[in-house]
């Protein structure tokens, strides 16, 4: 006998050992269930992270823009006739008022991971007879790379961005027939163009983006676009992507700027991600339910089988509370042990997956990883489930009439 444990623990362990086959069966059931939950959860969340990373890594989570120009007709002024039609004004490329201060303040927000200024506008890329319209983005490389990791997307050349350099998308380079080292003339919509050297080609993962991308240094873009010293937008990356909209609202409230989060600009994608999240949760709930029913069923059978022993214990002075605890401990123990084995199974499955489901270079198609939170969470839930599903049988056992139990 485990020497000095309280009665409840001794009895629970004896009963579990006595019904060895049952205990093994239920532990096996819980293990498989927990293994499935952990593996699926890890795989699903890795997949989601993967999708989000791929989609969101080429765009900031929030873009801060100057307030929209609005038409302000002069009405009801004495001697002025009201215009019957109010036309919306065109939106000029404008600088954000006091962008340096706003950048500092935004970057200091705890929810914000990184913020970078950008001077962007339309321009033409000209090489000989070929002309393509491009989105000219003037960036501060250090800051911007923390938002869109261009170094990961470089196809050829380097990421050097001096005053006379430009980095273009691969499709644009192909259209214009330029390679790294060639000269390219960038002409803004209004004003003088300038010849820049192509220092790198980037693949942003989308043909449309690759056809229009042209990155230059911030001050180069400022002079080309007539935004001397200005920034047309501030790009922001947040720590919790799902909080992007809240952060955007907070920034708008604080600065009066337009703040567009990815949730609003990619609403369809966000809806899909959300649906996926709900589906994941549903899967977990149902598997947990199946485990709970399994544990409860085994414990109920065990109470019925043990009713004679329960009666004997009651006749010898065991209180209802003691009987209750004996079965609660059994349930929790089954859940805990099962979930530990389940975590091992899941870890093995993940290792196997990352080893077998790989591309030709041996890199896993989907790196699932071992998120300790998922493991700990599943183990905790399974143990609690075991405990909860033991409540009913335990109460049944505790309420057994000793006389009936002994005769039965």
């Amino acid at each position: 006998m485990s020497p000095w444990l309280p009665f409840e623990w001794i009895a629970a362990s004896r009963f579990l050992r006595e019904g060895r086959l049952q205990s093994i069966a239920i532990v096996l059931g819980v293990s498989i269930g927990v293994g499935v939950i952990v593996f699926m959860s890890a795989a699903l969340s890795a997949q989601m992270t993967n999708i989000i990373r791929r989609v969101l890594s080429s765009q900031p989570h929030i873009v801060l823009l100057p307030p929209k120009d609005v038409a302000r007709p002069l009405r009801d002024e004495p001697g002025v006739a009201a215009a019957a039609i109010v036309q919306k004004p065109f939106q000029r490329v404008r600088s954000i008022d006091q962008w340096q201060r706003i950048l500092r303040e935004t970057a200091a927000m705890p929810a914000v991971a990184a913020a970078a200024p950008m001077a962007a506008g339309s321009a033409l890329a000209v090489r000989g007879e070929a002309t393509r319209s491009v989105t000219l983005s003037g960036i501060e490389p250090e800051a911007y790379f923390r938002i869109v990791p261009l170094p990961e997307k470089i196809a050829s050349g380097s990421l050097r961005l001096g005053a006379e350099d430009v980095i273009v998308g691969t499709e644009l380079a192909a259209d214009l027939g330029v390679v790294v080292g060639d000269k390219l003339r960038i002409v803004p919509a209004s004003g003088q163009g300038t010849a820049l050297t192509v220092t790198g080609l980037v693949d942003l993962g989308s043909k449309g983006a690759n056809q229009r991308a042209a990155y230059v240094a911030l001050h180069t873009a400022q002079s080309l676009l007539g935004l001397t010293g200005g920034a047309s937008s501030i790009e922001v990356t947040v720590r919790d992507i799902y909080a992007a909209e809240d952060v955007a609202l907070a920034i708008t409230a604080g600065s009066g700027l337009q703040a567009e989060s990815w949730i609003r600009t990619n609403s369809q994608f966000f809806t899909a991600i959300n649906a996926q999240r709900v589906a994941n949760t549903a899967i977990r709930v149902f598997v947990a339910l199946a485990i709970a029913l399994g544990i409860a069923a085994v414990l109920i059978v065990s109470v019925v089988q043990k009713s004679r022993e329960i009666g004997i214990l009651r006749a010898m002075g065991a209180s209802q509370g003691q009987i209750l605890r004996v079965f609660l401990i059994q349930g929790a123990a089954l859940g805990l042990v099962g979930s530990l084995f389940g975590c091992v199974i899941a870890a093995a499955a993940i290792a196997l997956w990352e080893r077998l489901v790989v591309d030709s270079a041996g890199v896993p198609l989907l790196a699932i990883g071992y998120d300790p939170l998922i493991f700990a969470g599943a183990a905790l839930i399974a143990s609690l489930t075991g405990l909860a599903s033991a409540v009913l049988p335990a109460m049944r056992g505790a309420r057994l009439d000793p006389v009936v139990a002994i005769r039965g």
Partner: protein
Amino acid sequence: MADEVLRIEGLRKAYNAGTPLETEVLHGIDLRLGKGEFCALMGPSGSGKSTLLNIVGLLDRPSAGQLYVEGEGAVGLDERAITRLRGRRIGFIFQYHHLLPAFTALENVFMPMLLERGRPDAEMRKRAQQLLESVGLGQFRDRLASQLSGGQQQRVAVARALAMRPALLLADEPTGNLDTASAQGVFDLMRAVNREHGTAVLLVTHNHELAAQCRRLVEIVDGRITADRALGAAG
């Protein structure tokens, strides 16, 4: 009676009370048992003697009447108080030994003490060991109850019944499933306990030979006591 261990007054027990199927099995039983008495309770099957024993053992509740164990009223107590009274004052020996098969002989003996105190201690182990030795099973202490023979199991049950030093020992046909030699052995054990510790014994039995060795015989027929006499057997 001075040292009164058990007093029953007007005890009735009906099953399915309040329904058309109501059947009363005990019709007003009065019984007193003094300290150190050794009393046999006999009666045909269905006479209500097991029901009476279960009520006296506080396993079952009477429909009417009073029940005192060592002067303490047991009718109307709540579940917790009844459990405590049962655990401390009354020892049980059943027809089937009713040991816990998953526990060793020693553990079965100190189980009532363990239930009372919550966790095992050296003292209860020592006492259980002594009790096992007193029933001649000291060397089987670590054997699982399910691995003992019928006679051995019943002797362990006797040792267990004595663990709490009860004032009253109830036995419901403790020898019913034993061969004659084992039955006499268990009976002698109970008598020795009775003599040495002054424990009152109420023994339900069909065995006339054993009953004849008791000092008092109560007969019960159809839920009524029909005879209550002292026997000459020496204690």
